[in-house]
Structures are given as structure tokens and as C-alpha cells.
């Protein structure tokens, strides 16, 4: 059995105005992978390909050891999938949906389902059309969590939620992820949500994966240096620095492979380092996307 829950290799999919190119994505079993990208980056297409809902034009996809899309039935017994644009049957109640899913999956845990009903503040006899957006998302997640799947695939589950509902859902996700055997792929453009729960983070933009590594490494390696540059001093291109923006005598250098001697290297050129700042995941994401786009345009 492979140690990877998700293996995507050389995956391509072309639409008239968008394409995924040579996508490589590996998620080890038991890991929580955050997939971050701007709107239209290819997150949902990637997820739909690995769920077998969209067939790739080229490349290999294996999910929990099953080749996709050919073996999607076997894979989907073990995958819990919820997406922001997935809807439930409006005329039916929460309890009816629970009964429907329970009738399909032998792994359904009724005790846990009742516990989630209480935690999420859902009324089983309420019809879906009477639920708020947050309650609908909670119902969808309840239907997924109570099945106890080996792999959770969540496509922008927190989009459009108010802060309280987001907090409740992220707290529950954190609880669900305590089961170390469970793998999670969580896509979002809310970097805070992904930062809160992910072990590893992959950035995707315009159909390409632009970076992928564990969260702590990102936060350790990315720094912003504030520099004072005297007249006549020209800042050199230093290894590990991906971008320098200068306005008058002030410059900001962004490093994606920060080392302690980087500040000394700038000091040696005559510049003065005013400060070294850690970057948030959102800032790292934006800098990564900008660098990737500049490279493509160059």
C-alpha cells in the first residue's frame, strides 16, 4: 500500500479559457494539506479530477491506491467530499439527508451524528430550504464527518460563512483531524483558515502548482527586510531574495530562503537593515503568486 493518499502526476486538463498543466500533487496519508489559490486558479478543477467528477486529458491520478477515474466507485466509499457549490435537497429535512447517507454507508456513526447535530445547533426536522448558508454547510459537513471517511476532500467549505460559523466549523475540523489515520485536502482562498489547520500547504495559480511545502518551513523561510539604501548604493541580486521594491532611499526585499547572513550581505553593500519581519501566510501566498506571474510574463 502506498504511503500517499493522493498522487497526481503530469495531470492536464484543457478548457477553452483555462488549463491545468503538468500538475504534480502528492499528499501523504494522515497529512492535512491546504490548497490555496486565488479564484479561478484551478483548485476546484484539481479536486474534481481527483474525485473522478472531471476526467483529466493526460496524467495519472491515484486516490487511496485507486486509479481515477476508472476506480472511482471503490475510492468514493472511502472519501468524504464537500464543496462550497454543493447543495442538498431543499424540500427534504436534515434528518432525511442523514437517513439517506446512513442507508448507503455502513461506516455511518449515529452517535457521532447526533453529537454533531447538537454541536452545530441543527434541528433534524428542519427542511434544508429553511436553513441559513452556515447551517447548510454544517449539514453537508455533518453528512461527511459522520461517515468517518479515510480521506476528507473539502473544497472551499468556509467560503461565505460568518466568523462565528467559520470558527465552529474549523474547530470541528480540528477535532475530526485528531484521527491521525485520516488525510485531509482542504482548499480555500482564506489563508487564515488553511494556516490554522494544515500541516502542509500548496499554492496554485493559473493552473500551475507554484509551491508546496510544510507550513512551518514556509513561515521560517519567508522574511521581509526593510532596508535604507544610501545614494549611490545599488542593491545586488542575492540568492534567496525573490523580489526587491525600492522607492527613493527605502527598499523592501522579500526572501523565500531567509538565512541569518542575508542581513550581513546587504550591510556589506552599504545598505542599512532597518528591520526583519516575519510574513503571514497570506503575504507569502501573495508574494508567491506575484513572483510566479512575473516569471511567466518574463
Amino acid at each position, binding site marked *: 500500500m502506498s504511503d500517499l493518499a493522493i498522487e497526481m502526476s503530469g495531470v492536464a486538463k484543457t478548457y477553452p479559457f483555462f488549463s491545468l498543466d503538468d500538475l504534480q500533487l502528492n499528499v501523504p496519508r494522515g497529512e492535512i494539506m491546504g490548497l490555496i489559490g486565488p479564484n479561478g486558479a484551478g483548485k476546484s478543477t484539481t479536486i474534481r479530477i481527483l*474525485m473522478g*467528477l*472531471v476526467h483529466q486529458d493526460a496524467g495519472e491520478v491515484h486516490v487511496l491506491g485507486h486509479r481515477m477515474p476508472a476506480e472511482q466507485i471503490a475510492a*468514493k466509499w472511502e472519501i468524504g467530499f464537500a464543496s462550497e*457549490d454543493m*447543495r442538498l*435537497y431543499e424540500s427534504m429535512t436534515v434528518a432525511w439527508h442523514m437517513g439517506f447517507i446512513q442507508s448507503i454507508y455502513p461506516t455511518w456513526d449515529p452517535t457521532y451524528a447526533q453529537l454533531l447535530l447538537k454541536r452545530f445547533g441543527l434541528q433534524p426536522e428542519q427542511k434544508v430550504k429553511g436553513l441559513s448558508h452556515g447551517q447548510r454547510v454544517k449539514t453537508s459537513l455533518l453528512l461527511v464527518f459522520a461517515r468517518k471517511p479515510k480521506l476528507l476532500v473539502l473544497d472551499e467549505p468556509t467560503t461565505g460563512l460568518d466568523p462565528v460559523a467559520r470558527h465552529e466549523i474549523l474547530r470541528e475540523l480540528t477535532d475530526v483531524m485528531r484521527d491521525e489515520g485520516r488525510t485531509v485536502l482542504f482548499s480555500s482562498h482564506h489563508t487564515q483558515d488553511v494556516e490554522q489547520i494544515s500541516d502542509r500547504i500548496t499554492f496554485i495559480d493559473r493552473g500551475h502548482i507554484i509551491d508546496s511545502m510544510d507550513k512551518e518551513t514556509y513561515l521560517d523561510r519567508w522574511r521581509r527586510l526593510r532596508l535604507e539604501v544610501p545614494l549611490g548604493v545599488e542593491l545586488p541580486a542575492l540568492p534567496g531574495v525573490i523580489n526587491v521594491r525600492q522607492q527613493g532611499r527605502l527598499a523592501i526585499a522579500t526572501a523565500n530562503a531567509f538565512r541569518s547572513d542575508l542581513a550581513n550581505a546587504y550591510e556589506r553593500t552599504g545598505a542599512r537593515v532597518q528591520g526583519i519581519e516575519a510574513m503571514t501566510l497570506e503575504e507569502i501566498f501573495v508574494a508567491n503568486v506575484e513572483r510566479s506571474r512575473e516569471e511567466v510574463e518574463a
Partner: protein
Amino acid sequence: MNDQVILRLILKDWRLNISLIIFAIIGGVAALGILLVGGQTPLVLGAVLFFTSMILCASFLPMSNVVNERKKQTLAFMMSLPVSPAQYGVAKLLSTVGMFVIPWVTLISAALYMILGRHVLPGGAIPLALILATVPLIGFCLITGTALVSESEGWAIAATAIVNSSYGIAWYLLVSYLPSLIRTWTSPVAVWNAAALDILGAEFALIVIVLALTMLLQSRKHDFV
């Protein structure tokens, strides 16, 4: 194991559309009740209401059961379950056709009872009635196939409009160009001549072809959500 999932999907569709089936049966039974009154006007009114119930059911069911799955964004929920797209297509086709066939068979049976048991019409009307009543079944299969393959409300509406406006022409052609059907409809017992059997056979062959073509096209799809 997967036959069970397909069965669950079929039962789910039936549960969601139960009111439509009941309304179709009530409409058809009311039509047959009008026929019982006897006389020329109730005969025409009853026949019109009988076929209207069938046609409305044939038009609304594909919209409600097939097109709405995509329109109301529940398709992703269904496709996240352990079924292949082809199995989903089989489940959808069986549930939709089953839902139409239930009121169709009920109404046809009730109509046969009215002819044979209550003598509202002569027995010779049975072949003609069956041939005419099978036309909405063909129309229903065409609309359902278009809706399932295209998953488009626009295409489904276009198919419904074309099919519904073709019923009158189809019935007119059947009655006008097959005098042997008309010659025997007033006889006291059903006359199953070659023309009647050929037409019925052709109608059911057309239904099988439409359904098989629908499954073939559905199984060749690559993108589902």
C-alpha cells in the same frame, strides 16, 4: 453492493417526486370518472383530460427529476456518492422512467377496465387507445433522454416544446393514414390486425432505441459537475 446504492438513488428520486406522480394519477382517474358519465361531451372532455394528465407528467418529470439535479446544484452531492457516472445515469433513467410508467400503467389499466368492465367504449377501441397512449411514453423518453444527456434546462425545454407540439401531428397521422385502425374501433371486441401490432411494435422499438442511445451518450461523458 452497488446495486444497493443504485436502488437508494431510485428510491430517493421517487420520494422527491411523489407529489407529481400522485397528481398525474388523480388527473387521469378524474378523466376516467368523467368518461363514466356517458355521452359525447364527457367522452371528449375525459379523453382530453386523460391525455393532458399524461403529457403534463411527461413534461414535468424530466424537468423535476433530471434537469433540477444540475440546476439546483445537487448533482455534486449525488456524484460524491460511490457511483460511477454510468451508474448514476442508469439510476436516473430507471427512476424517471419508473415514475412515468407507474401513472401510465395505472391510467392505461383504468382505461382498459372502463372499456372492458364498464363498456364506456367498444372493445375495438383498445388497440387504438393503446397506440395513442404510447405516443406520450415515446415523447417522455425523448424529453428524458435529452435532459439527461444535455443536463441543460434550455435543451430540455426545447425538447419538451417540440415533443408537445408533435403529439397532435403524430395522432393525426396515425389515425389518418391507417384506416384499418379506424375501421375496427367500433367493433365490440379488440381486433389485433397486422397494422395495429406493427405500430405498437415500432413504438416500443423506438422507446428502446431512445433509452439505449441515452445510456450510450451518458456513458461517454467525461465531465459531470
